[in-house]
């Protein structure tokens, strides 16, 4: 036992002598870049370059067909201000985001609290609630189209018992709520994240508060929620990014044949990205569409920054073990 520790220590010192040589350092740096090169190349070619290309296109009148196009300055961006469809689409996306993000987080947290309780069949409940989150988007859209179908959907079937004639749920304005329901159906992923946060909260804290006479709601409000706040912040940011760029549910819910056209999306589901997509692929206004795309990108950056700033005081970060050790060392010095 002691010998192995000693030999391990000598290996470490011998390694250290190898490591301090400059040749070794250079080898290691080169190797680092070798190892990360697949990602680095991918990042430059598949992220940076496309973003830059879109920025360049947004300053031109490119239509995707004729090879001749030229620089038009910021005209595409000023055109957005007069584009009523774009503003309508932005409003729809705003409403969709303002509903699905808070609803998803609250529902996810509520379900996480329930499946965190010591009950029988807990793994089964967790699996059932999470299951829809793994269903591919084309599958969930088909499920909801069949569920809300005006001729043979389940909802109209139930309404039929009460003599209510069938409603076309997949048309304006109700199709918007079908899309919201479909989004919230996948709340399992948020639930799992909240659940992992709940499991990370030490039981003693909650028990101590209960002993001191706090009721369940007070414990949740004063202890659980503050300790969960970093995770909730994460859910808000990823939720907003996800919702603002959403358009595939709207596309898949709207038409029998999704590839045919984006122009048949009902007004209430005309999300911002649907508008962008239509400008690109239905009208071939590549320059203008690229400007719309960059506005979305900028909007997401700004929203993320605003959320970070606005919550700076409200989010509670428990210091990790490293920081605690460091602080203790600082104090003992």
């Amino acid at each position, binding site marked *: 036992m002691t010998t192995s520790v000693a030999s*391990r220590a000598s290996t*470490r010192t011998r*390694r250290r002598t*190898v490591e301090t040589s400059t040749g070794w350092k250079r080898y*290691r*740096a*080169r190797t*680092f870049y*070798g*190892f990360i090169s*697949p*990602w*680095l*190349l*991918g*990042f430059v*070619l*598949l*992220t940076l*370059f*496309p*973003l830059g*290309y*879109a920025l360049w296109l947004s300053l031109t009148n490119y239509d*995707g067909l004729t090879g001749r196009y030229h620089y038009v300055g910021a005209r595409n961006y000023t055109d957005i201000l007069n584009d009523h469809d774009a503003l309508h689409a932005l409003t729809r996306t705003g409403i969709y985001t303002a509903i699905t993000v808070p609803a998803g987080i609250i529902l996810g947290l509520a379900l996480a609290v*329930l499946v965190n*309780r010591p*009950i029988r069949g807990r793994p089964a*409940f967790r699996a*059932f*609630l*999470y*299951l*829809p989150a*793994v*269903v*591919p*988007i*084309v*599958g969930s859209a*088909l*499920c909801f189209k069949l*569920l809300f179908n005006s001729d*043979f959907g389940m909802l109209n*079937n139930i309404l*039929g*018992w009460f003599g209510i004639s069938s409603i076309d749920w997949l048309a304006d304005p109700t199709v918007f709520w079908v899309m919201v329901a479909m989004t919230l159906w996948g709340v399992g*992923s948020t639930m799992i994240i909240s659940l992992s946060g709940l499991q990370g909260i030490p039981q003693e804290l909650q028990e101590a508060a209960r002993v001191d006479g706090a009721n369940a709601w007070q414990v949740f409000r004063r202890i659980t929620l503050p300790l969960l706040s970093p*995770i909730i912040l994460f859910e808000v*940011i990823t939720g907003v*990014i996800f919702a603002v*760029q959403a358009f*595939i549910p709207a596309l898949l819910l709207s038409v029998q*044949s*999704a*590839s045919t056209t984006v122009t048949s999306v009902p007004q209430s589901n005309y999300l911002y990205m649907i508008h*962008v997509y239509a400008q690109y692929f239905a009208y071939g206004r590549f320059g203008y*569409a690229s400007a719309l*795309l960059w506005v979305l*990108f900028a909007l997401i950056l700004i929203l993320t920054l605003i959320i970070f700033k606005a919550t700076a005081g409200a989010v509670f970060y428990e210091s990790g073990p490293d920081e605690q050790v460091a602080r203790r060392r600082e104090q003992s010095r």
Partner: protein
Amino acid sequence: MSIQTRSAPRQIATYAVLIIVSVIFLIPLLWLLSIAFKNAGELASSSWLPHALRWSNFHDAVTLIPFGRYVATSILLSVVQATLATLSSAMVGFGFARLRARGKRPLFLIVIATLMLPQIVTLIPTYLIFARVHLIYTYWPWVLWGLAGSAFLIFLFRQVFTNMPMDLEDAAIIDGCGYFRIFATIFLPLAKAVLVTGFILSFTAAWGDFIAPSLFLSQDQTTLAVGLSNGYQTSAGTPLNNALAAGAVLYILPILLLFVIAQRAFIGGFITSGLK
């Protein structure tokens, strides 16, 4: 004692809510399954369950559209992208975990930042570029996306490799072993569980992806996701909803089975994405 009596009604309420919500969550899938087994006449009837199991719907589902070809494409693209993305991300993650060089910190911050990047913002311009260099209507984009790795998996692998003991590489370095061999022969085999998680997560993502195949591939070389979204019709253009439901069941089932078998990988992946 007082805690016992107080928690009994709460226990019942918990069960009641969970059972109701679970049933509501399962209804869309059960309705799909029911339609997949009904016949066209039963669709409009008020009965919720099929009178007999019409397996012929599944026969229609795989014969009325080029189902086999769609499945083959879906499997090919998903396996290629998932394999490449997992291995490439493992390699990049190892670099960030175990090697030191100038610029490592800012580069890793970029990896984290790309996790937040909306994918559609880069996907459409990528399509425009690939159209110019004749990479659309080929399967090459999936190879390239795979090789570039996934920011999330890179992050996952970095965590795992960072937490492995130093002793692992010390001896190998003394013996004059290069880092690539250390990675391939020592570290990679130890990360088997994460490799499986990574493969499953990226396979599922590629299998479910709708927008990339609908943009980058033509109708006759596309994946099952896009093929299904086009629906089933008779030659007269009437939609065949029973066949469509059966096709959707066949499309969803492999992912649900994968979820049942490897639940831990799915949930573990999601949790890690949430924590850091």
